[in-house]
């Protein structure tokens, strides 16, 4: 009695049981594609917000306008958070999160605190954009073309968040790959 054949599409190394056929990229180009896509998504979010601002100044039928104070502040928070998260040195973060001994444990809390601040800024930008949508546009009961400015704000901050996550994941793909090569 022979053992049953293992089908081609099942790889024991991959995360899922079924690998998607025709989607095999080397990790270096996968990283490049991820970083390009991250920049593209960030750009989409920024221009969604700029579109809302131009709409407010050119085609606006209502008295509500996009101002710096409530409307652009969430984007500012999200951008600060994205900068902080991506400026943390990855090696120190690895040692801080896994408890490695490459740095002294007295310096580990710095990386953790900075990363926490970054994620807090990112989540704060997202939450404050939803707050602006609710408090400035939804609660006074404005209808759709005016409400669209608040929706664009939420879209903008959500895409900045997605872009940050993509950048983070794409930068960690290669690290794990080269780590597995070095073993």
């Amino acid at each position, binding site marked *: 009695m022979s053992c049953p054949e293992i089908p081609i599409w099942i790889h024991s190394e991959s995360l899922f049981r079924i690998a998607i056929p025709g989607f095999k990229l080397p990790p270096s180009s996968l990283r490049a594609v991820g*970083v390009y896509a991250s*920049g593209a998504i*960030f750009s989409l979010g920024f221009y969604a917000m700029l*579109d809302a601002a131009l709409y407010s100044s050119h085609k606006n039928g209502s008295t509500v306008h996009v101002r710096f104070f409530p409307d652009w502040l969430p984007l500012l928070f999200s951008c600060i958070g994205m900068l902080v998260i991506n400026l943390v040195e990855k*090696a120190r973060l690895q040692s801080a999160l896994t408890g490695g001994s490459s740095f002294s444990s007295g310096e580990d809390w710095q990386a953790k605190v900075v990363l926490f601040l970054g994620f807090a800024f990112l989540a704060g930008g997202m939450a404050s954009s939803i707050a602006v949508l609710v408090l400035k546009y939804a609660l006074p009961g404005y209808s759709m073309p005016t409400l669209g400015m608040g929706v664009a704000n939420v879209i903008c901050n959500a895409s900045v968040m997605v872009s940050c996550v993509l*950048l983070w994941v*794409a930068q960690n793909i290669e690290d794990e790959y080269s780590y597995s090569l070095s073993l």
Partner: protein
Amino acid sequence: MVQISPLSKIITLSTVLATGFLLIILSCALWNNWLPLIVVAVFCLAPAPNAICQSWAGQDDFMSESSSTVVDFGRFSTGFMVVSGLSIPVMLAHNSIINTAAMWMSLSGGLLIYATIITFGAFFYEPEEF
């Protein structure tokens, strides 16, 4: 793989580039609204951060952590600028600052210019011999 002589490559690319510039300048001049010229600037600047960062990071022989970070920043800003070159005309046309036909003309012209720059780099790219 058909071998194309470099002269015909250059002639074809310059023709396509001139067509792209013609489309964008027409999209500005026909409606007397010179805002779509931003697209030219964005698409001409789009390959620049990638090239600068890669040559700057290529000074190291090995792939160190800082150089890969620099390359990633170049890729991020290239993706940002390509999508902004596509979305600036759409945004201007959505708010009726420029005409919709001007949006289509400047979009196609910008894509032609960017494709010219990319294929020019790909045609005359010679990998280093080790």
